[in-house]
């Protein structure tokens, strides 16, 4: 059961349909995101899991409409956010969405803060930008936000470099939540932090998410973080979601060969194993994706059909769990 069923309504806050984002360069087209489907209800947290180059960050930038253009282009699909298609919005309209209704936390807390402005003023700036308040009110709200993320008022006027990595990430979280956004996108927010600090930050994010009733997309490569903080999981490979579902369903019963491979690659802290079972081969080159299913060269159970046809439809594993793999579709005879 999702942790915050109480707040979750049935309305989909975000519904991405067949999103494709390509980077068109002189050397060729990088197909970063291909026919990606994803949906998220209010108050829900989804973990977007995948390895380097899977297209996680591009997806996030796509939702924010921040894909650098050129060379990036949203070449197809829709991003429905609270009933509106973000891909159709003007740049000016998007500016009102960013930071106010959707905000984003980046991996590196140092580079996402301005080194020459005190942290309190950086938060106040966002509030002033989106809300009709006086400067004094904004500053007061900023200090309040800092308190919420566990930074005492006497440190509010300090500069980013005076804080440790974990504290800086708290400041970034305070900025992201300052305008009470409906959707928070966190791009590997704890990857740069030590485990004990990561535990602090994750705990904080869990509490704030509940307090603000914010939906969240948690981009991560760490299945442990998903198990800890998310309600749903989407596994990405080569720019599309290959398996998506309720956290409990998917973790207990992973179906896609890539998902299974990911779980098997992890050293298990609970029991002893002689050797790990890695996925063979390497991530495919997004400029030159394999024919058929992009995972087939690395797949141990690929069938001849997988080399020719890419799976296009999701197959329901259970009510809340779907997989995109030809092994499970009826046309190839199923399992």
């Amino acid at each position, binding site marked *: 059961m999702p942790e915050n069923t109480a707040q979750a309504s049935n309305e989909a806050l975000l519904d991405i349909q067949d999103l494709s984002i390509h980077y068109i360069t002189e*050397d060729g087209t990088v197909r970063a995101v291909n026919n990606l489907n994803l949906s998220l209800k209010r108050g829900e947290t989804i973990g977007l899991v995948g390895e380097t180059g899977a297209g996680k960050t591009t997806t996030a930038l796509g939702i924010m409409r921040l894909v650098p253009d050129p060379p990036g282009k949203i070449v197809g699909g829709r991003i429905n956010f609270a009933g509106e298609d973000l891909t159709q919005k003007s740049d000016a309209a998007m500016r009102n969405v960013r930071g106010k209704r959707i905000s984003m936390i980046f991996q590196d807390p140092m580079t996402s803060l301005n080194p020459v402005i005190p942290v309190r003023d950086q938060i106040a700036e966002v509030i002033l930008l989106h809300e009709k308040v006086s400067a004094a009110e904004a500053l007061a709200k900023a200090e309040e936000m800092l308190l919420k993320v566990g930074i005492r008022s006497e440190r509010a006027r300090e500069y980013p470099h005076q804080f440790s990595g974990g504290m800086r990430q708290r400041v970034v979280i305070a900025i992201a939540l300052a305008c009470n956004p409906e959707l928070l996108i966190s791009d590997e927010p704890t990857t740069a932090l030590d485990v004990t600090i990561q535990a602090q930050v994750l705990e904080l994010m869990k509490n704030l998410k509940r307090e603000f009733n914010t939906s969240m997309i948690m981009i991560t490569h760490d299945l442990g973080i998903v198990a800890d903080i998310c309600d749903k999981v989407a596994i990405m490979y080569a720019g599309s979601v290959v398996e998506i579902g309720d956290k409990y369903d998917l973790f207990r019963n992973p179906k896609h060969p890539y998902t299974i491979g990911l779980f098997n690659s992890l050293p298990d802290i609970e029991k002893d194993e002689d050797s790990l079972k890695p996925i*063979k*081969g390497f991530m495919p*080159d997004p400029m030159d994706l394999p024919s058929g299913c992009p995972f087939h*060269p690395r797949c141990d159970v690929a069938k001849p059909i997988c080399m020719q046809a890419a799976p296009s439809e999701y197959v329901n594993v259970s009510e809340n769990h779907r997989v995109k793999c030809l092994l499970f579709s009826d046309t190839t005879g199923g399992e």
Partner: protein
Amino acid sequence: MLTNKVAVDEAPVGVNADAKPRKKRSQMHDVWKRFRKSRTAMFGLFIIIALIILALSAEILAPADAINPGYDIQDLGNTFAPPGGEHIFGTDNFGRDIFARIAHGARISLYVGFVVVSISMVTGVTLGALSGYYSGIIDNVIMRIIDILLAIPFLLLAVSIVAALGPGLRNVMIAVGVAGIPGYARIVRASVLSVREQEFIEAARSVGANNFRIITRHILPNCMAPIIVQATMGMAGAILSAAALSFIGLGIQPPQPEWGAMLAESRRFMRDHWHMVMFPGVAIATVIFGLNMIGDGLRDAFDPRLKK
């Protein structure tokens, strides 16, 4: 060796996938690919290649006669001839063909540029590398020498060197070369300081590499980009400085056709015979322009991030 090989390495290589074994292709290849895309840089390269061809073929275009070299064949009956006809750039106050002098002058200018850059580059790179690699006293001593060099105005330095060693092409080249040392030393020192901290330097040390090998094999090749850019731009500066010194009479002595010297000689006739001033002037401007275009192109090609 290993019984069950962990990875069957069948995936394509990087972005440019090709499954065949590859000839060696260094990063210079990529630099050239990017350089080629810049029109201004290619134009600069075209100018310089044309100039090199002109310099190489000077003896053919303007051959010597029985007595005089090609640039000093005087025709006193045909002085100050305007451009066009037999003498496309016209003739000077001694009736010498200006085109012949420009062509032969190209040799001198390119030679000067090359020698000066070699002097300042070799010395500057060595000093900069030593200074950056061995911090502490060595660094301090070298950098103070560089500071002193920088504190003396270039002309004063050049004039004193030439005054001490006497005028002439060789001493001008030494003077200009010495003046160029600080530029290289500083650039190299800065990049050595950053490369020195990289992990692959520690890796080299861990397999037993000595300091000489670390500097020459690992540090300097990774500082090449700014050095090459500085050398290209520096060559332009060197040609200009040598021309300036010749112009004030410290450099090449007549009848040698150095462009700066040609400018100086023609100063007196500027009012009535514009072509005598224009062609050497345009020649200097063109070579400087070409080298700077190449330098800019190289800088962008080495570091594509700098360019939007």
